[in-house]
């Protein structure tokens, strides 16, 4: 697709004309979600129980956070394949820091701050590396983050000797996993807050809007006088920073620093963003698409687990869903034009 077409498509999304067919199309995914839930509920009543719904919401909040991180860079026609290994590295790094600080006899507040500081520092370093290589050296995002994927995996497993890092203070887990606000678990609260903040950032600030412009037409963005390179670096730092936050939440859940935590997360996060309707061609998507996609994937795998569908079959279904989801989105776009 040419830049011109893309920018026309983007203009369309910015000022939605609420015709009937467009309303129908934009409702496809939410309707599919409800149908999916009801379908699973027909097989197993437990799917709709309050406990399981809360479970789904909690599960979704992690994936949604990672999908949001991925969406930010995908908006600029980028990728972050290193997201999963970044999560592993942050998990191991913050756990080691906390274990070390606790062992040297600091009080629990200092230990927590040291862990958070180490985690975010590692995440931001990763983002700076990605952003620097992509924006300043002009390396394709796929290669750059594939490189940092390997580097981050190497660092995470070397630091931890490939074993889980013990010694995470209980207070850490109590706050970031066990904690709750008005009965809502911490993971959901954090993701919701980040989601609102990120939405405002993307929709209402110059920085956010410039991401869309860079994604739809990088040349136009440069001609318009945007500091494209600086913005790109900031984008990757933002992505890795969000990944670091997710890593801290996951570390609190497991109670130890896990070198294998990231595993398939990079691709899952991309799948979540893309199924929700984020365009890999750049310039289209947002917090809403990331959350929808994450919700869809989580409900699907939760339902398949509860209805006892074989794990290997689940892989096939997820693969098919990713393709069908993007195909539907493609058809939806064609309708618009």
């Amino acid at each position, binding site marked *: 697709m*040419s830049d011109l077409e893309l920018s026309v498509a983007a203009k369309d999304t910015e000022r939605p004309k609420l015709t009937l067919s467009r309303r129908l199309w934009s409702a496809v995914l939410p309707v599919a979600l409800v149908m999916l839930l009801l379908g699973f509920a027909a097989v197993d009543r437990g799917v709709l129980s309050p406990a399981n719904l809360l479970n789904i919401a909690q599960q979704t909040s992690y994936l949604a956070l990672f999908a949001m991180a991925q969406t930010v860079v995908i908006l600029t026609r980028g990728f972050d394949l290193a997201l999963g290994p970044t999560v592993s590295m942050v998990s191991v790094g913050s756990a080691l820091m906390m274990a070390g600080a606790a062992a040297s006899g600091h009080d629990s507040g200092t230990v927590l701050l040291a862990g958070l500081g180490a985690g975010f520092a590692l995440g931001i370093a990763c983002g700076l590396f990605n952003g620097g*290589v992509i924006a300043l*050296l*002009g*390396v*394709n995002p*796929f*290669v*750059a983050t*594939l*490189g*940092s*994927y*390997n*580097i*981050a*995996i*190497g*660092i995470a*497993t*070397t630091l931890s*000797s*490939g074993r889980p890092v013990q010694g995470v203070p209980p207070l850490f887990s109590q706050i970031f996993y066990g904690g709750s606000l008005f009965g809502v678990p911490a993971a959901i609260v954090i993701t919701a807050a980040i989601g609102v903040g990120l939405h405002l950032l993307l929709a209402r600030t110059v920085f956010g809007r410039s991401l869309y412009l860079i994604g739809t037409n990088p040349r136009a963005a440069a001609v318009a006088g945007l500091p494209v390179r600086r913005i790109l670096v900031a984008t990757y730092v933002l992505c890795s920073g969000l990944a670091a936050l997710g890593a801290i939440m996951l570390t609190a859940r497991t109670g130890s620093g896990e070198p294998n935590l990231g595993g398939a997360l990079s*691709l899952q996060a*991309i*799948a979540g963003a*893309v199924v929700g309707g984020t365009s*890999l*061609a750049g310039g289209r998507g947002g917090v809403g698409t990331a959350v929808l996609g994450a919700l869809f994937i989580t409900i699907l795998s939760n339902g398949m687990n509860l209805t006892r569908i*074989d794990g*290997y*079959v*689940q*892989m*096939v279904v*997820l*693969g*098919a*869903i*990713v*393709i069908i989801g*993007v*195909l539907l989105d*493609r058809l939806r776009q064609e309708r618009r034009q």
Partner: protein
Amino acid sequence: MNTMLVAASPHRSISLRSIAGRIGLLPALLVLLVAGMSAVDPQFYGIINVLNILRNASLLAIVACGQALVIIAGGFDLSVGAVVALASVVTAKTMAVTAAAFPGSNALIIASGVAAGLGCGVAVGLVNGFCVAKLKVSGFVVTLGTMSATAGVGLMITNGIPVYGMPEIFVKGFGRAQAFGLPTAAHVALIVILMMVFAQRRTLFGRYVYAIGGNVDAAVVSGVTIQRHIVGTYVVSGALAALTGILLTAQVGSGQASFGGDRMMLQSIAAAVIGGVSLRGGVGRIEVVAVSALFLTILGNALNLLHVDSRLQPVFLGVIMVAAVALDELSRRSKPRV
């Protein structure tokens, strides 16, 4: 700019300086690595180690050739690792079933197994190609989906347990055999590389792949049938990945769903990219990709022999990948653009 490169490449291949420019530092690095390792560790040039390197490099090179072709046409194939696993499992299973039905008729057993394995690769390639070319879904997403699905089917067939029951001759007479001192995989890889180089330079298909990757619109206007050739690249990539799966199966003696995987997929992309294939499409040569596969294999082997912690090894791979592409990008920037 891409179209210019495509148009100019046949002439460029004549001048020696431009060959060095296109291949870049890779052969020099390779020679340096081999010389350095030979000086440090005599084990490195021992016959066992050399055969080991050749075997692994051949397997990687075959997959990387297919991957390179897809990337040159402007796509991506994330499913190759999963295809290696599926082909391995299906080949072994088919052979075991045929052997039970027609005991003793080895030719039939082997033919059916190999055909089934290659068939899987072609089938996955067709699905990839159909979704990319006809349904216009991005190659990254399609192959991400088929990767998950293919790996799932492989595991479903075996439940994660290795499949035995292949004829002895397939393993001993083919997989672990050596002819003229080279392992079977090396012979197969050589044939594949020669065929691919020929296809790239001397056939319409090869030239069209460059044209499509370089500038789709220009290719359409020039009357190239885009869809058929894009499907073709994915089918070749799937078939070559399946071939690697079959070779691995013959070498190990069992079909395993754990072959290939994400590691093989990422390495094949790394080999293609370090070998000068541009992710923008339209640029890249199979022979350089093969050299790059050899380089990556020797690098891993050298790190092992030097007792570098296996956990730390990915860091080297990552740094070299980024550095290779960054150098390429910087040298391109310094060249004047016509």
